[in-house]
């Protein structure tokens, strides 16, 4: 158990270290340097330019040797200081990101969980009969093959423009100011629905297909055959097959997290939904390196955290890992 956790922790730490290092390199190795980029945009005159350049280099900590910049980066990271956004100057990057995170959580967590749950349920359902299989499986394949943004575009165009019952941009109506009123919450839900559904549908298809294939495999397993020859009910046999098939699906969730995050990113772009994905795109288009840095860091932390949770969950649900890790297995 200890050994297992030790290994996992090592990989997480290594990944984190590597990711942060890549992250640190972003503004420093981008074409042009961030300060002159920002100053060119504000078009100050040449006299003031030099003064301001020195000033901002100092503000952004770019006037010390590279190795020190690297150490400083780690230090400020632990203070929660990710620098100042040049695009939304002078808002600190951390603040910009913290404003966007709730939208990501609201979009991703339900879409992933509901998609995973419903996909597994329907996949198990499809494995029950030829007729269901022939209807659910093709649908699942089409959905997983659909690019995230295209499904988003289709939904936005059809339900947002043609039928016109859903808004297709923003997180809430522009005429409202954020408040704790029913009207505002209603507006938020109204705007949230389409991006949520488009993300959910693609997820759903993938899980359904995976579950269907796993169940069919499990129903062929020896323990299923034994139960059948003992005259157990089909219900019990299917239950056991489902419980066994869910395990690889949990690992699958960890593996697919990166893809889902990418999916959320393009979905946010389609619906101009102000999460980190949308922010990242804005940051890239405006060459706001500190913001890019922050977005990347938040995504990494989010994915690592989710992976960690899934790892722990897996140990809880699979007795084999639990016992095996403690060296009690034969």
């Amino acid at each position, binding site marked *: 158990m200890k050994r297992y956790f030790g290994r996992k922790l090592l990989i997480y730490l290594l990944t984190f270290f590597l990711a942060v290092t890549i992250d640190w390199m972003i503004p420093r190795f981008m074409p042009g340097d961030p300060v002159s980029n920002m100053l060119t945009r504000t078009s100050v005159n040449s006299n003031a330019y030099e003064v301001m350049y020195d000033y901002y280099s100092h503000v952004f900590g770019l006037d010390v040797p590279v190795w020190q910049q690297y150490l400083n980066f780690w230090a400020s990271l632990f203070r929660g200081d990710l620098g100042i956004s040049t695009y939304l100057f002078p808002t600190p990057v951390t603040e910009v990101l913290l404003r966007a995170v709730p939208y990501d959580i609201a979009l991703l967590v339900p879409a992933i969980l509901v998609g995973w749950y419903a996909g597994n349920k329907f996949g198990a359902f499809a494995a029950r009969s030829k007729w269901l299989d022939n209807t659910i499986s093709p649908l699942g394949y089409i959905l997983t093959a659909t690019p995230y943004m295209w499904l988003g575009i289709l939904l936005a165009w059809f339900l947002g423009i043609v039928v016109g019952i859903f808004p297709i941009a923003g997180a809430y109506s522009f005429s409202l100011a954020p408040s704790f009123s029913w009207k505002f919450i209603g507006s938020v839900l109204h705007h949230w629905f389409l991006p949520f559904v488009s993300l959910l549908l693609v997820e759903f298809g993938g899980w359904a297909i995976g579950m269907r294939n796993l169940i069919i495999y499990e129903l062929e397993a020896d323990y299923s055959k034994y139960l059948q020859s003992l005259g157990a009910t089909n219900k019990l046999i299917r239950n056991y097959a489902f419980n066994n098939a869910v395990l690889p699906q949990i690992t699958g969730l960890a593996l697919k997290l990166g893809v889902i995050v990418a999916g959320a*990113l393009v979905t946010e772009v389609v619906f101009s939904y102000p999460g980190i994905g949308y922010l990242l795109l804005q940051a890239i288009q405006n060459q706001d390196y500190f913001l890019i840095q922050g977005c990347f860091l938040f995504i990494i932390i989010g994915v690592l955290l989710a992976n960690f949770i899934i790892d722990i969950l897996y140990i809880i649900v699979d007795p084999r890992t639990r016992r095996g890790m403690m060296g009690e297995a034969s």
Partner: protein
Amino acid sequence: MKKEKKQNELIYFAFRNVKLIIGLAIILFFLVLAVIGPMLTDNDPFDFVNPLGAQPPSSEYWFGTTFFGQDVFSQFVHGLRATFIVGLFGGGLGTLIGILIGFVAGYRGGIVDEILNVLTNIVLVIPTLAVLLIIAAYLEVRSIFTELIFIGFTAWPWTARAIRAQTFSLRTREFVDLAKLSGMKPLRIIFTEIAPNMMSYLLLVFILQFGGAILIAATLDFIGLGPTNAISLGLMMQFSVIWGAMQLGTWWWFIPPGLAITAIVGALYIMNVGLDEVFNPKLREM
């Protein structure tokens, strides 16, 4: 003689497998369209050929024209080419790297395996799109070639994992021992003894990588980090969204590219299921 019989049997089952045939037919259809399509139109995908701007499909412009009066059909068939190139070579590169790392890790075991395993796990956990985004943002000019290189170098981890597990189980088999005893070099054993026994599996892996690469490319293109000097199906979707195709109702601009990607990737997946049934007698329906 026995081998020949086995091959004949595979071909027999391949031709009887509806999923495989349907999948293959769809792929071939789009492939042919990608090859001969650009010859059917004189319009360059970026030329402003229609002064009326966005017009629905007509006999002159089969798929209509864009907001700027560009020929959607021309963009579509040129974009298809890009899609196939990225899928084939990007997916191929990803498969190749995955195979190489998987084989070496699975065959050598020990410390080499440990190191490659940690590497695989790290690349697996980092959301590749975020990395791709940043790398892509570095380059002022990007081509389809750079895109497929990016994709190949980030899509290999799960393949490496799967191949490693397979190699692990194969390397303890008798024929590998025999080869070892006869003094064959490890790399030769991998390619002459182990790889042929996994051929069917490698094909399945490649097909999945093919489909995956197409989807990643579409995503990259859509957020504006695709090729800067070519057209692709993902770029078509990006342009259509930027220039308000949804709001203006010019559906002919964004329906064909998305539909084609869905059809191609879906066909690849279905082909994969079909091939699996051909290779695994257990899955064949009686």
